[in-house]
């Protein structure tokens, strides 16, 4: 069937302003949106730029705005949309456009870095594995599905007004390490997140959870950080 794709175009080398370009694509209902973009590029216009790699929702390269909603282009099929085979494709919001649908993700990864996204342990590991309660592993397991696609952070309204806010993706990673029983830096991790640029910046608007292509309960995970901060406070008050 014939589909119309209206695609955001911007080449900083020649364009002052972004524009939209229209393409007609013959697609199957089961084609991914990424397949359609590939058809445009291979058959009509090789100058179109966008990122992609695994093409099945695992590598996190191709988060885009599709008909005004943030989606992975490789995880949405033509048949998933009720828009009469018309598609508007735009880059992720929030981030600076480098070219066409390619955005600058560096600020996103910089924030990721600041939550110390690695296990910190002041105990020497045993010769074999550390034991870990399977219930504890299950508690943070949903956060492990994150593919760092940036959808949640791009969707978050708080991020648009406070550029220092860590954003949902970095907080989710923060939660993953705060919740991991093997990590011994929980106190300092919680202290780091105990402010308006951290966990309290989240006003539970659920946009992150709504757009997450991996169905991760992002808002709930941030709420768990808040709960753990409160518990830590209580413990400290009770101790003093």
């Amino acid at each position, binding site marked *: 069937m014939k589909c119309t794709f209206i695609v955001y175009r911007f*080449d*900083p*080398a020649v364009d002052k302003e972004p524009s939209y370009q229209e393409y007609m694509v013959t697609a199957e209902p*089961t084609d991914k949106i990424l397949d359609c973009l590939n058809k445009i*590029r*291979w*058959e009509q*216009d*090789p*100058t*179109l*730029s*966008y*990122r*992609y*790699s*695994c*093409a*099945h*929702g*695992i*590598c*996190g*390269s191709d988060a885009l705005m599709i008909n005004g909603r943030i989606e992975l282009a490789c*995880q949405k*099929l033509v048949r998933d949309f009720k828009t009469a085979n018309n598609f508007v494709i735009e880059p992720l919001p929030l981030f600076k456009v*480098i*070219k*066409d649908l*390619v955005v600058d*993700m560096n600020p996103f990864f910089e924030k990721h*870095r600041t939550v*110390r*996204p*690695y*296990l910190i342990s002041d105990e020497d*590991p045993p*010769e*074999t*594995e*550390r*034991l*870990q*309660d*399977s219930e504890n*592993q*299950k508690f*943070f*397991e949903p956060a*492990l*599905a994150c*593919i*760092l696609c940036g959808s949640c952070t791009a969707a978050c309204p708080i991020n648009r007004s406070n550029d220092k806010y860590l954003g949902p993706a970095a907080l989710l990673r923060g939660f*993953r*390490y705060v919740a*991991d029983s*093997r*990590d011994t830096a929980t106190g300092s991790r919680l202290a780091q997140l105990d402010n308006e640029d951290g966990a309290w910046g989240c006003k539970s608007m659920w946009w992150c959870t709504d757009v997450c292509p991996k*169905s991760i309960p992002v808002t709930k995970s941030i709420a768990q950080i808040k709960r753990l901060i409160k518990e830590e406070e209580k413990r400290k008050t009770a101790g003093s």
Partner: protein
Amino acid sequence: MKHQFDVIIVGAGLAGLRAAIELGEDTSVAVLSKVFATRSHSGAAQGGIGAALGNEEEDNWEWHMFDTVKGSDYLGDQDAIEILVRDAPRTIYELEHLGVPFNRTPDGKIAQRAFGGHTRNFGEAPVKRACFAADRTGRVILDTLWEKCLQRSIRFFDEFQLMSLIVSEGQCHGVIAYELASGKLHTLHSKAVLLATGGYGKVYKTTSNAFASTGDGLAIAFRAGATLEDMEFVQFHPTGIYKLGILISEAARGEGGILRNNEGKRFMELYAPVIKDLAPRDMVSRCILEEVRAGRGIDGKDYVHLDLTHLGEEVLNTKLAEITGFARIYSGVEPIREPIPVQPTCHYMMGGIAANADGKVITDSEDTPFLGLYAAGECACVSVHGANRLGCNSLLDTLVFGRRAGKEMRRHIHTVGFSPLPANPEKEVAAKIAALMESNGNETGGPIREELQEVMMDKVSVFRQRSGLTEALEKVRELQGRYQKIAIKDKGSCFNRDLLDAIELDYMLNLAEVITLGALTREESRGAHSREDFPDRDDKKWLVHTMFRYSKEEGPQVFFKPVTITRFQPKERKY
């Protein structure tokens, strides 16, 4: 732009990152990747990583070694396999200590599950040997290693395409890379280069591989004088989603999933009476196609059903959450209630750049090293997988040999200084890009790539025979000719995918030729290489590695190297 590091690692998957961590403490190291590091295809690995921990039931490394040797159809080098399996438990504990969030047993140990071809007591029954984190094992290991690299402040060159190796007097001194965002060339000068560029499944039409899996590192090393090994051995994973090739992990069968034909029959019982659906991948892929040929494909088509309906919602939504999602999204099937339509999909390359167990690239059958050049992971052939890799041995391979390559490079760089670079090292690459950009030829890459993928799928996949292979070789060479007239429409220098596609296509054409040539040369059936005109394994003549050397005048040249056999003499391979 010029940069200098002790070590340059090309590829940010598990092999590259593991090597980087090994070096990062006291060595200047840069990791170069054509996609952002966490987009590397190691992240797509689902089911698990094998190690005889014995956490769930009795197990030991000798059983793991036997299974790997038998799985390889006796083509794997047994000294290297022994290193792999003996180092496996240590590797898992190391990952756990780094923070990898493995699933746990009720008593808090690392949980394990069954996987294809892994057995107890030399083939008696399946054994639980695969350590896992749901069905996103690769994802969590990749994240953990990448984040460890961030902690170590290892320098990443993300979205840099490898263009060439700087080689003079038979020694590698660094790489030339193309920056995607600017179109600029960079010279990265080093004492050692590790190629960890992964597989090249994109040579085939139906594949579980990422778009980035185009074999750049192999083709570049090959033309620079490295030797390729066992390239005809291409793994087709039995359970790709019908028509799409997206992988449904072997863990689905490890957890109890069953393959059924159009009569609803569990056909693997006939072919592998002992371990049934958990037979190795080469076998199961052939069995599926045999069923299809016998008219027992679903609706008379070329696929069968993977039935997970009896596993229950809990197992599907937790231990197999990703693949359950894939089935729902891409085939519109609800695995809790309906079987998933599956067919074989190109998944893994057993062949690669010939390397020894310390990651040194070797150039001949006497193991003469290519100084300064190393390889690890899927792009290398050590060879631990021989003619067919067992599931959950590839993550293990990347980590064991990535680490060993790291150690060997550290030793090497302390013994040598930086050699002076040749004058104007970027010249050839710049000329190649300019020629492509300015070409006014009448070909475009798209159709050439499509025809390549189609002919490889039709003639050089699970079943092969001389006539088809000869046609394929002619076709690939014709496409190579057409490639010379290819033109680039995008004249820009920022994220010019048109140019990058063309560069990758050149590598794919090169590797397709070598795969087909190997398949044509090897007149026997062994592991994943199944010749219908030579249906039996022939140990007298073919218990050898196929080696390929590049000649500018005559193209790829074939020679052979003996297989190392230590503990297990070749026997008939039955399951």
